[in-house]
C-alpha cells in the first residue's frame, strides 16, 4: 500500500476492483465503512462476482474476469476526453511533458522491437529524447505529438465505451456511471483510494493492470494524498516483509537487485543502479545504492567483506535468468533439479497445475518441508485416494518434514500491508519437539558449514565467511536479527558536512538509512528497515496509538518503512508551492519560517528542500516525477494494452482482431509443452476464476476446527443462467474440468454470478473457492490448482489463477 489501512477513512471514494476486502480483509474493510459513515464516502465495486464488498457498495459494475485493462483504459479515455484530470498535478508531478524517442511505435497491438520467435521485445526504442545536457527534452505546452500526454491520449482514445462493453461485458451505462463517480475525485480536495489484491495480480498481464490503475490515480492527482493511493491488499501476513527483505530469485534486501552474469565489474554494477537525475534539480535517491549495498554486505559477511574484495561481490550468485517458482517447477519437471526446501509454503496447492508440480516433486532426490502443519506438499508422495492418486512405491524422493513453531510461539516482526513492522511476543511453548525457523535454518547451516570447514568442497568462501555472530549460534535470537537488519555503526559515523560532528558512535544502532555509508563503516541488512531498532530501542514494538491530527496517522505505533513514513509520496499532497491541497487532511506542508517540511507524517522528501527549487515529489525516480510512460521497465510495453487471457472465450482480441500475435500478452513466457495444455473455448466454454472465502485462510484453516465447522465442504459457484442451461441445482455434485484435470464439488447456483454477452455469444463464469485439500480437519477435497494453467504475468510470473477456461457437468455421486 502507498497508504495504510486506517487512512482509508480519509477517502471520498473507494474503488475496490481486483479484490474483495469485505471477505478477504474484513478488519481492514471496516475503514471503508468508517469512511462511508463519517465522510459520506462512496464505494464502487467492479468485479465478476457480486461479492460481499459489492453488497455494501453504492454502485456495482460487473466485468468479465481478465478484462480489467480494457475497463481502466476506457476510464483513462473518459478522463482525458472529458478533461476531468488534475491539471496542476499532472503538469508538475508527472512525465506529461516528456518527449519520447521518435522510433518508439505501437502498431497492430505490438510495440516496436517485438521478436515473434522469442516472444520478447527489444526495448531500446522505449525511451526519452535526451538533450545535449543529458536531461530529457520536454514540451511544457504539451503540444508536441511525441510528448507522453499526446501519445497516451492517442493510445487510449481507442477504448470507447462501446469497446469496453464489447470486451468487458459491462453495460455501457454502468461503465459510464463508474467513470462519472471516479471523475469527481479529480478535484484537488477530493481523494479516491484504489484497493486491489490478487484479482489484479494473478493474470498474464497483472502488472499492467495495476499500472493502469496507478495511471488513473495519477491523472486524478490521487497519489500521495490522504485517502488516496494505490493500495495492494497483500494476501499473507508477511508477504510484504519477505518481499521487502528480497526473498525472490532476482532480488537483494530493500529492492536491490542481484547482478546478472554479464555484470562482472563491481563498479559498473553499482553505477547502473545509481541513476543520475534525468531532470535538473531532482533527487534520484537510488544514487545512494552503493551505501545500501555495501552496508548489506557488511551485515552478511562482516569483517570478511572489504574494499579489496569488492565487499564480497563475487560471493553473490550471478543470474542467467530469473528462477521464479514457475521456472523452477519447469526445471524440476525436466529433471534439472535435485533438492528443494519448502519453508512454510505449500506449492503442491499454491503453484499452478498440480499435476505438473506433483510430477516435478517426484523427480527430486530430496525434499525438505518446514512447516507447523501437515501440508499437502509434505505428503505429495502419499496416496490420498481420488484427491491425490499417486503410487508411493514409484516415487523415489526422500522427504524430510520438520515441525516449526507458529506465530504464538515466537517473538518477531511482521510487515502488514500498510508497511508497518509490528513486533509480536511469544505466548506459549511449541508443541512436541517443534522448533522455530531460525533454529532450523541454523541447524542445517551449521552442519553444512562444519562439513565445508573439515572436508572442503565447491567454493566454500561465502559459507565460511558468512557472519554468524549470534550469542547462541544454534538459535539466533529475533532481537539479534532485528538489530542486524536495522543496522549499526562499525566506526564513528560523522556528518558529511562537518567531519568533527559524530552522528552515531561506533557500535551504536543507526537511526535511519541517511546514516549509511559506502566505505564499510556501517552494517545494515535491509536499508529500508534501517532505524527500526535504534538506540531508542525496538521501535517496531511501540504501542502508542495516539492520533494527534485525527486523520489516523499513529506515528508512534510500531514502525513503518521507510523512515516511519505512513503515506508514500506525501509531498504530492501539496501544491507546487508546498500548500496542502486539502488543509483539513494535512499530511505535510512547507513551513517557510523554519525552512522545513513537517506535518502529521514524516515527509517523503528532502526535508529542507524549498518548493521554489522545484524538486519533484517522486524522489526515487530519476525523473523526479511519476511516469505514465514506463520506458523500458516493463517486459510487455510502456503503456498498458488489453490482451486476452491465455485461455479466453474469445477467438480474437477485439482490440486487434487481425493480429493473432496480439491476442494474448505477446511477452508472456510459455514453456514448451504448456502451450498444448491451454484449453480452447469449444471444449471449455466457461471462464473460471479462483478466490477465497471469508471463513478460511488459504490452505491453513482447514486444519482449524472452528473454520472447518463453518465451511466444511468444497463447492463451486455458477450463475442461474448456466445452472438452468445445464440442469444443475444448488447441492448437485458437479465435475469441473480444464485441459489439465478436474475437480468434483457441490454446486452453488447463485445470482451473484451473472452471464455476459460478448460477440453475440453468452459467456458464463464459474467461481472456484480454493480452500480444500487432502490434509486437515475439513472434509477432503480437490486442490483447486488441479485446474489452473501454467503461465504467469510477463513481468512477475505470478500465475494466471483469475481467468482460465473450464467445462462443467452434473454428475451422480455415490457418497
Amino acid at each position: 500500500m502507498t497508504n495504510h489501512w486506517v487512512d482509508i477513512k480519509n477517502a471520498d471514494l473507494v474503488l475496490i476492483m481486483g479484490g474483495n476486502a469485505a471477505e478477504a480483509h474484513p478488519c481492514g474493510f471496516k475503514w471503508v465503512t468508517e469512511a462511508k459513515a463519517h465522510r459520506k464516502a462512496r464505494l464502487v465495486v467492479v468485479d465478476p462476482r457480486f461479492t460481499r464488498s459489492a453488497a455494501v457498495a453504492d454502485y456495482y459494475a460487473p466485468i468479465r474476469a481478465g478484462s480489467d485493462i480494457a475497463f481502466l483504459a476506457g476510464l483513462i479515455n473518459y478522463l482525458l476526453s472529458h478533461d476531468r484530470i488534475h491539471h496542476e498535478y499532472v503538469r508538475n508531478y508527472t512525465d506529461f511533458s516528456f518527449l519520447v524517442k521518435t522510433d518508439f511505435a505501437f502498431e497492430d497491438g505490438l510495440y516496436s522491437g517485438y521478436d515473434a520467435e522469442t516472444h520478447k521485445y527489444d526495448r531500446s526504442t522505449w525511451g526519452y529524447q535526451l538533450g545535449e545536457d543529458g536531461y530529457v527534452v520536454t514540451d511544457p505546452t504539451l503540444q508536441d505529438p511525441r510528448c507522453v500526454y499526446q501519445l497516451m491520449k492517442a493510445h487510449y482514445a481507442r477504448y470507447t465505451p462501446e469497446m469496453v462493453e464489447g470486451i468487458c461485458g459491462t453495460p455501457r451505462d454502468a461503465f459510464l456511471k463508474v467513470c462519472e463517480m471516479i471523475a469527481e475525485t479529480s478535484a484537488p480536495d477530493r481523494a479516491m483510494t484504489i484497493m486491489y489484491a490478487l484479482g489484479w495480480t494473478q493474470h498474464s498481464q497483472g502488472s499492467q493492470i495495476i499500472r493502469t490503475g496507478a495511471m488513473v490515480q495519477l491523472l486524478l492527482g490521487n497519489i500521495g494524498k490522504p485517502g488516496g493511493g494505490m493500495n495492494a491488499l497483500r494476501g499473507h501476513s508477511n508477504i510484504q516483509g519477505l518481499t521487502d527483505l528480497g526473498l525472490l530469485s532476482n532480488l537483494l534486501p530493500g529492492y536491490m537487485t542481484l547482478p546478472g552474469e554479464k555484470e562482472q565489474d563491481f563498479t559498473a554494477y553499482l553505477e547502473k543502479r545509481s541513476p543520475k537525475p534525468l531532470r535538473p534539480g531532482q533527487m534520484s535517491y537510488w544514487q545512494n545504492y552503493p551505501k545500501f549495498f555495501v552496508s548489506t554486505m557488511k551485515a552478511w559477511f562482516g569483517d570478511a567483506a572489504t574494499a579489496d574484495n569488492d565487499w564480497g561481490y563475487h560471493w553473490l550468485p550471478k543470474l542467467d535468468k530469473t528462477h521464479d517458482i514457475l521456472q523452477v517447477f519447469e526445471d524440476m519437471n525436466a529433471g534439472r533439479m535435485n533438492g528443494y526446501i519448502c519453508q512454510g509454503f505449500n506449492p503442491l496447492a499454491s503453484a499452478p497445475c498440480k499435476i505438473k508440480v506433483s510430477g516435478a516433486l517426484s523427480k527430486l532426490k530430496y525434499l525438505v518441508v518446514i512447516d507447523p502443519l501437515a501440508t499437502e506438499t509434505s505428503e505429495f508422495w502419499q496416496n490420498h485416494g481420488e484427491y491425490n492418486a499417486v503410487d508411493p512405491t514409484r516415487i523415489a524422493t526422500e522427504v524430510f518434514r520438520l515441525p516449526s513453531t507458529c506465530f504464538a510461539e515466537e517473538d518477531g516482526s511482521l510487515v502488514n500491508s500498510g508497511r508497518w513492522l509490528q513486533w509480536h511476543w511469544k505466548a506459549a511453548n511449541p508443541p512436541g519437539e517443534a522448533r522455530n525457523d531460525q533454529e532450523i535454518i541454523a541447524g542445517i547451516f551449521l552442519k553444512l558449514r562444519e562439513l565445508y570447514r573439515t572436508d572442503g568442497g565447491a567454493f566454500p568462501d561465502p559459507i565460511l565467511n558468512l557472519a554468524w555472530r549470534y550469542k547462541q549460534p544454534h538459535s539466533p535470537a529475533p532481537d539479534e536479527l532485528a538489530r542486524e537488519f536495522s543496522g549499526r555503526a562499525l566506526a564513528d559515523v560523522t556528518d558529511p558536512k562537518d567531519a568533527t560532528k559524530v552522528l552515531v558512535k561506533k557500535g551504536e544502532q543507526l537511526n535511519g538509512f541517511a546514516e549509511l555509508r559506502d566505505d564499510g563503516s556501517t552494517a545494515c541488512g535491509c536499508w529500508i528497515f534501517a532505524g527500526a531498532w535504534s538506540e531508542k530501542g525496538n521501535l517496531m514494538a511501540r504501542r502508542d496509538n495516539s492520533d494527534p491530527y485525527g486523520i489516523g496517522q499513529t506515528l508512534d505505533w510500531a514502525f513503518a518503512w521507510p523512515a516511519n513514513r505512513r503515506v508514500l509520496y506525501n509531498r504530492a499532497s501539496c501544491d507546487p508551492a508546498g500548500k496542502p491541497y486539502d488543509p483539513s487532511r494535512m499530511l505535510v506542508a512547507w513551513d517557510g519560517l523554519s525552512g522545513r517540511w513537517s506535518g502529521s507524517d514524516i515527509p517523503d522528501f528532502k526535508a529542507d528542500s524549498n518548493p521554489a527549487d522545484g524538486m519533484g515529489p517522486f524522489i526515487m525516480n530519476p525523473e523526479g516525477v511519476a511516469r505514465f510512460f514506463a520506458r523500458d521497465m516493463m517486459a510487455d510495453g510502456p503503456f498498458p494494452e488489453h490482451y486476452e487471457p491465455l485461455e479466453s472465450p474469445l477467438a480474437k482480441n477485439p482490440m486487434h482482431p487481425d493480429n493473432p500475435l496480439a491476442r494474448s500478452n505477446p511477452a508472456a513466457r510459455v514453456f514448451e509443452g504448456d502451450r498444448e495444455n491451454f484449453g480452447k473455448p469449444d471444449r471449455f466454454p466457461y471462464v473460471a476464476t479462483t478466490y477465497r472465502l471469508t471463513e478460511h485462510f488459504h490452505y491453513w484453516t482447514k486444519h482449524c476446527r472452528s473454520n472447518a465447522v463453518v465451511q466444511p465442504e468444497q463447492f463451486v459457484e455458477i450463475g442461474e443462467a448456466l445452472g438452468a442451461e445445464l440442469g444443475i441445482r444448488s447441492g448437485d455434485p458437479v465435475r469441473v474440468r480444464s485441459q489439465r484435470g478436474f475437480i468434483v464439488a457441490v454446486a452453488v447456483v447463485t445470482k451473484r454470478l451473472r452471464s455476459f454477452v460478448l460477440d453475440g455469444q453468452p459467456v458464463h463464469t464459474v467461481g472456484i473457492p480454493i480452500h480444500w485439500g487432502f490434509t486437515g480437519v475439513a472434509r477432503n477435497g480437490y486442490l483447486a490448482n488441479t485446474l489452473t494453467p501454467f503461465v504467469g504475468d510477463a513481468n512477475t510470473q505470478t500465475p494466471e489463477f483469475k481467468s482460465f477456461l473450464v467445462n462443467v457437468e452434473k454428475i451422480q455421486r455415490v457418497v
Partner: protein
Amino acid sequence: MTLSRRQFFKVCAAGAGTTSLALLGFSPDQALAEVRAFKLARATETRNTCPYCSVGCGVLIYTLGDGSKNVRSEVIHVEGDPDHPVNRGTLCPKGAGLKDFIQSEGRLLYPEYRAPNSREWQRISWDEAFTRIAQLMKEDRDANFIATNEAGQTVNRWLTTGMLAASASSNETGYLTHKFARSLGMLAFDNQARV
C-alpha cells in the same frame, strides 16, 4: 460505578482482589463478562499479530501457567487487541479461530523422514535430520555448483537445489533465510509473493 469488562480487568490486575471488589459492589454490568474476566484474570496476556492476512490485526493471547520450569503454559483464549489502531479489538472469522490453529491436530510434533519409495513416515531426531539434509545438500552443491559460465564469467551459482520461503514467517526468519540461501549460491529461491 460502571466498568467495561476491560476496565474491570485492569482494576483487578492493578492489585485489588477480585472477590473483595465484587463485595464492594464494583462489578461489570453483565454477569457474563464477569465470569470471563475472572477466568482471564488468572491468565497471562501476550500481544501478538494475526498471522493470516495482511491487515495485521493485533491479538491478545491468554495463557494459563505461571512460567515455572516444568509447567507448560496453555493457550486458553485469543481475542482482538482493543488498543490496536487498525482492528480496534475486532477479529474476522479467520482470526476468531486462531486458537484452533495453535492447537490444531494437524500440528507437526517431531521431525519425520520418508525413505525413497516408502509408503510411510518414520520419526527421526533433529540431529539425524540436520545431518542427513546437510549431507544431501553438500553432495548436490559440490557436484553441480557452477563457478564460471561458458563465457568464462564468474557466476558462483547453485541451481540444482532451490528453496521457497514462507509467507507468514517473521522478518527475522526471512532475513536469516535469505542470508543462508545466498551464501550457498542459490538462485532458485522465491517466496509466496510470487503467487
